[in-house]
């Protein structure tokens, strides 16, 4: 009874039979979608500017990084299979809205952890970027060694990479081999999650091809290895930021396009609803006048 009387009071204000949107609802929705479109458009511009800067600094960084890894490739250094301590460095960032950047790195890390623990090895993970921590700590929390925050706000520098490497070396985790998982930048619209190897000093020193390298003592090798570690981390950071900015640009671009489509659809609905309301009022007036 109460419901029926309140329905009788509210019916004229709903314009339609179904509980469809009134003109006011549609107006509110239209305004909010327009605001979102403005935001995503400006985010796309910002990402485009950051991407062009990152890509420009990626060129020398790539030469530098491939130079640093050249030793391991040319000397064909492989870690022996029976070594147990592994390290995974996952490179990501703090900020979202960039497509599948963080989840692809996390997926690769999870796969690696599963494979290595299945083979009985010990794995620890270094997270660079808060998003990666969020994705990993619930299920693989006990594998996390170091978390790095405040990544992605400013372009990465060599100093950042050396801070990360220092923390890793000071943590006391003596890993035998490892890999760094990052997003390699291929082009503006594509990137690929890639993996580069890391080796410990003992692995390099005991590798068979190292014999041809002359006049190396332990001190020099340790310095060399530490420097190489920083170089690899720096390389991963640079590639990752470029991929991230390009992915954010693409994501915000498609978000703006979707918002435009929604605006078009809502505008059409708004016009149809407006005309229906006018027609209904006319009918009421005419039928009211005809009744007199």
């Amino acid at each position, binding site marked *: 009874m109460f419901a029926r009387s309140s329905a009788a009071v509210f019916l004229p204000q709903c314009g339609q039979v179904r509980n469809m949107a009134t003109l006011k609802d549609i107006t509110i929705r239209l305004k909010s979608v327009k605001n979102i479109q403005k935001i995503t458009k400006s985010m796309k511009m910002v990402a485009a500017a950051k991407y062009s800067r990152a890509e420009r600094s990626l060129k020398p960084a790539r030469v530098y990084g491939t130079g*640093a890894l050249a030793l391991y490739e040319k000397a064909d250094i492989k870690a022996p299979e029976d070594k147990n301590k592994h390290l995974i460095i996952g490179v990501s960032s703090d900020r979202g809205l960039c497509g599948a950047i963080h989840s692809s790195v996390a997926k690769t890390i999870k796969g690696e952890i599963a494979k290595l623990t299945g083979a009985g090895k010990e794995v620890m993970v270094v997270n660079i970027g808060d998003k990666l921590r969020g994705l990993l700590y619930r299920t693989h929390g006990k594998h996390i060694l170091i978390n790095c925050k405040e990544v992605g706000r400013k372009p990465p*520098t060599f100093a950042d990479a050396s801070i990360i490497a220092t923390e890793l070396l000071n943590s006391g985790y003596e890993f035998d081999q490892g890999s760094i998982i990052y997003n390699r930048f291929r082009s503006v619209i594509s990137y690929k999650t890639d993996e580069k190897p890391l080796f410990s000093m003992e692995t390099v020193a005991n590798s068979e091809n190292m014999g041809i390298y*002359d006049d190396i003592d332990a001190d*020099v090798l340790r310095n060399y290895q530490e420097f190489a570690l920083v170089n690899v981390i720096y390389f991963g950071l640079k590639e990752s930021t470029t991929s991230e900015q390009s992915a954010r640009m693409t994501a915000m671009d498609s978000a703006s396009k979707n918002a435009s489509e929604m605006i078009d659809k809502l505008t059409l609905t708004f016009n149809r609803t407006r005309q229906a309301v006018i027609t209904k009022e006319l009918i009421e007036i005419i039928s009211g006048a005809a009744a007199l």
Partner: protein
Amino acid sequence: MMAARFLLRRAVPAMRQARCYADAPGASAQMSFTFASPTEVFFQGASVKQIDVPTLTGAFGILPAHVPTLQVLRPGVVTVFSDDGSSKKFFVSSGSVTVNADSSVQLLAEEACPLDSLDLATAKANLEKAQADMVGASDEASRAEVQISIEANEAIVKALE
């Protein structure tokens, strides 16, 4: 007519391809030299005659077919002698140098700049300031930092004089 012209154009590149360049004489005698810092690339895969590098164990020169080695750099001057006899000098702060078996050399410097972009007066002033700081440095870490600064500035001053 157009077809004939098209065929002619296609034929010419094929003829050009038949005339190849001679192979580089004895590829193993060439050195592929890559010299980069994190922000700048100076040489990439370049072919040079000799490189002088300052390392922790002393300065030495690298020529093509040098025995493979790994070294760590100390602050000092790197001189690159290119094939035409000219030489370029750079100041490097630290880094590593790798000579591989295939005669490729990777010189990775943490910071490097051409020698003529350094100013002698500023370097001397920095050196004096660093030596003054040494007196005031108390713990291991800051002492090591000041020591590094002194070494680097001394090397700059020596290189510019």
